């Protein structure tokens, strides 16, 4: 990838965006009727589907360790799966590999921070995320889709969880990286934020970054996450408006 200019002299990125600009986001809630909650999001060319089942009775490994249910709060169970045709090169297995398991654990950590699990003791909430097309920022798209799906299922949360990725090139922090920018090998930061309080649910960084620059990159990611929050809030209000029109209010 040497020679590919991620940031031109005029300040434009490979796909024509500015440094802090997000890709086009379109989202829809209530995609599947049979699931408790579902949502679909498109962030540029990255497409992700999230489906939520729950809260329901915790399915434990009977006989081995008893039920996995926790006595004081709900169990959040996440699975990340990406379709075999989602990446440029065909993937052999959609889930079960190391990366998918790690992503599942990260999603679980993110949502345990946001969902009010004390309201549903001894039960389980399943969040299944499916990536249909991967063009960078898959973790962020999954978190955003899962937030909408959890809201669609009516499960109470502290706040929205909005996520975005950020990178650093030639002294400028870039928000919402695409696959080309991720593959170039620079530092990447993934951030999941609860916008109202500004609390960080998940923070992950790859590659080397000088600590002097960290604050700038973190601020770029946080600002992008807040922008995502505005969009998701709009989608939720639109959905509720449509639903109440259908109910005849």
């Amino acid at each position, binding site marked *: 990838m040497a020679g590919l200019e991620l940031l031109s002299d005029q300040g434009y990125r490979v796909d024509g965006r500015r440094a802090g600009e997000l890709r086009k986001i*379109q989202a*829809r809630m209530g*995609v*599947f*009727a*049979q*699931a408790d909650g*579902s949502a*679909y999001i*498109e962030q540029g*060319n990255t*497409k992700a*589907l999230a*489906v939520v*089942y729950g809260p*329901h009775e915790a*399915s434990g490994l009977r006989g081995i360790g008893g039920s996995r249910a926790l006595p004081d709060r709900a169990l959040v*169970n996440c*699975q990340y*799966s990406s*379709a*075999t*045709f*989602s*990446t*440029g090169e*065909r993937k052999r297995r*959609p*889930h*079960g590999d190391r990366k998918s398991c790690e992503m599942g654990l990260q999603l679980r950590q993110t949502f345990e921070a946001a969902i009010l699990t004390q309201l549903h003791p001894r039960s389980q909430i*399943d969040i*299944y995320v*499916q990536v*249909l*097309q*991967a063009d960078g920022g898959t973790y962020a798209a999954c978190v955003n889709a899962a937030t909408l799906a959890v809201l669609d299922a009516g499960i109470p949360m502290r706040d929205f969880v909005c996520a975005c990725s950020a990178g650093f090139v030639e002294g400028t922090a870039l928000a919402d990286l695409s696959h080309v920018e991720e593959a170039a090998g620079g530092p990447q930061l993934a951030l999941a934020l609860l916008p109202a309080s500004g609390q960080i649910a998940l923070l992950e960084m790859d590659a080397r970054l000088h600590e002097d620059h960290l604050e700038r990159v973190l601020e770029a990611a946080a600002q992008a996450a807040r922008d995502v929050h505005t969009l998701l809030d709009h989608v939720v209000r639109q959905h509720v408006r449509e639903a109440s029109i259908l109910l005849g209010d």
Partner: protein
Amino acid sequence: MASVALSEAEKVYIVHGVQVAAALLRNAAGTRVAGEEAGEDLRVDGRSCEDYRSVEVETDVVSNTSGSARVKLGHTDILVGVKAEMGTPKLEKPSEGYLEFFVDCSANATPEFEGRGGDDLGTEIANTLYRIFNNKSSVDLKSLCISPREHCWVLYVDVLLLECGGNLFDAISIAVKAALFNTRIPRVRVLEDEEGSKDIELSDDPYDCIRLSVENVPCIVTLCKIGYRHVVDATLQEEACSLASLLVSVTSKGVVTCMRKVGKGSLDPESIFEMMETSKRVGKVLHTSLQSILHKEESLGPKRQKVGFLG
């Protein structure tokens, strides 16, 4: 498969709606046999026994693929992506390409499919797809050959099951046919060097591609035996009431390429012949509607507004 809990009364209601007054037809004396019920050829949602639910088909949904399609049949949602990659031909068929099927029953459909839970159903569906395509005429495999014994196109057909609302096999076969129709394989040229080593050159023009002919690609018609009669396109509730089903794969000309009985009950031979006749009839209608929809969508051209899951 995703299961639904039905009470005995609900099962009886569904079965009686489907059954024809068999006693009234069979009793030549004309007197009605006590205890036999008269049914009306009416299912729970108002369809007749040979009606399909409303089907939505959209192609070119995923852009990373050579071809893709999404089919929504009632509550059943299927997404198929076809990727064309270069590979070596199989030893027993050196001048043909081949198709590889993979079915992923995702946890989106039901929590039972989490982890490896969906693997059994996925393997069963993939094996059925291999069988229905395992004949000379379904897909022209010779057109997938680049140079005999060395290079050929391998089409990886990946099926993603997103929501399970009954009648999976039919929806999957419709989606596979639509995705194969949408597949665009880039044209290649084989250049030979002086030393004899071959070089493959891909055409630069992204619109220069070969299309597959899907005239003879079969579609599966599943017939579920409910009571005395059989129904086409059963919902989850109707599948819970039926003990046995027959999967018949039919081409647009009415030729049967594969037949399989599934389910824990048994079928008697007359029903099997009746079901086959029904499937041929229904299959022809299904193929004509599908072809007309696919051609209509194609005629809208590249400016067509893509809806996908946002609509």
